[in-house]
């Protein structure tokens, strides 16, 4: 009893004072290149001749979620499976990035990174792995640039039909206010996510933490997730406006087949490499119905939909992901390596 009280007091003090913040992203890596603000990282623990996997993050939070902590890291597991893991880090947009459009990401940054990875890869090809909006970006990029050396395409919780998801996150519903840099402020995005379930997000989570303040493991896990989850970044202003045009309420140019990138028609049906779509059945941010149309849209003959009983982040973070979803993805990538 005394021990638990001591732990509770110690953890409360550390939490309130911000002492001993858990260190995120510990897998060894090195910077391979930069393009504007974008960074391309390569993780060091990989085998020779391993399949090269390029992780592409969404534009709303930081990619450190791919490598949260030892024992709870997608990167660590991919490295352990022998994969050569690379990561595209968008960084936080500044004034120079406010005019970035979907063309900037899909026709420039992603092809640039894919090419760099392919040149270092034994097979000369890349498995492209996009998460959330990063999944949509990879889909559009591959469809618009068929010459890219992508051997497999994996997308997780890719909201290709956001109009079927929560109203609070639909393009055009997030207040189109721009900060002095010309981008959508990070706080606006954070509030949009909080508004999905304000009671759970703002009160219940804190009560749960208070009740389990004597549980070191729980407190650490809570701090890890809240540190990442609340660390939103600005959203590029021009991309926000463009997404409202392309995917706003009452229209979805991608589903309608009218979407154009730099004036070129983009048809997901032109994607022909093996394709894996991972869907979390308990995902409240990109519910299954926002990703389900992909199986009909993507043209690959070899396509798989992996559905797991997980939430948005639980697809690759946490005990369940480590036991089920990640092994499923590793098996699929291994089976489809060149």
């Amino acid at each position, binding site marked *: 009893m005394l021990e638990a009280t001591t732990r509770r007091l110690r953890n409360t003090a550390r939490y309130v004072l911000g002492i001993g913040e858990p260190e995120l992203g510990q897998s060894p890596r090195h910077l391979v290149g*930069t393009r504007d603000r974008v960074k*391309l990282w390569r993780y060091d623990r990989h085998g020779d001749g391993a399949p090269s996997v390029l992780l592409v993050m969404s534009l709303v939070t930081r990619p450190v979620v791919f490598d949260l902590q030892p024992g709870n890291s997608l990167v660590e597991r991919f490295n352990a499976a022998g994969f050569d893991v690379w990561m595209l880090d968008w960084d936080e947009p500044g004034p*120079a990035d406010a*005019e970035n459009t979907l063309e900037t990401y899909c026709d420039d940054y992603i092809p640039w990174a894919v090419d760099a990875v392919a040149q270092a890869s034994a097979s000369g090809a890349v498995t492209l792995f996009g998460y959330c909006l990063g999944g949509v970006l990879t889909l559009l990029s591959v469809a618009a640039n068929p010459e890219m050396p992508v051997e497999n395409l994996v997308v997780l919780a890719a909201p290709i039909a956001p109009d079927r998801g929560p109203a609070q996150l639909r393009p055009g519903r997030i*207040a189109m*206010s721009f900060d002095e840099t010309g981008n959508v402020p990070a706080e606006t995005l954070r509030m949009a996510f909080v*508004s999905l379930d304000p009671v*759970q997000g703002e009160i219940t989570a804190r009560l749960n933490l208070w009740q389990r303040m004597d549980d070191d493991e729980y407190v650490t896990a809570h701090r890890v997730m809240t540190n990442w989850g609340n660390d939103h970044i600005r959203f590029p202003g021009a991309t926000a406006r463009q997404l409202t045009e392309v995917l706003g309420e009452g229209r979805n140019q991608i589903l309608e087949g009218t979407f154009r990138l730099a004036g070129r028609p983009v048809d997901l049906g032109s994607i022909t490499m093996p394709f894996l779509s991972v869907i979390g059945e308990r995902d409240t941010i990109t519910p299954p119905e926002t990703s389900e149309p992909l199986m009909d849209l993507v043209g690959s003959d070899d396509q798989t939909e992996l559905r797991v009983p997980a939430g948005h982040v639980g697809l690759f973070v946490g005990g369940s992901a480590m036991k089920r979803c990640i092994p499923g993805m590793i098996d699929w990538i291994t089976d489809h390596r060149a």
Partner: protein
Amino acid sequence: MTERPGLRDIYDRLADQVGPQLTDLTASDRFADVVEVVDALRMRATNELQRSSRRFLHAWNLPAGSDVTVLRQEIGALERTVRSLARQVETLQRQLDEADGARVAPAPRSSRSRATSNGA
């Protein structure tokens, strides 16, 4: 005999009742309209405040925060121009390489520049 509910049980019951209603509210069009109006008002108030403080500071020949903002925006625009020029140089370099390659050997697998050419 039933146990008396603890404070947490009472909260959980209340949260079960209120939570979905609040979520419905935040998902409604009316809420989005209110957020938009509040946001516009906030922006207007901020702009007014900045204008007043700028006038005051400029009267004393001092720089205001908004001057820094303008500078940052101008640097951003300049950076965009540099990026655009860098892309044009890349394109020209690629065309030159391809022309050379066509004369000497088969074209390389990919024509894009290596990642290391522009960074670390």
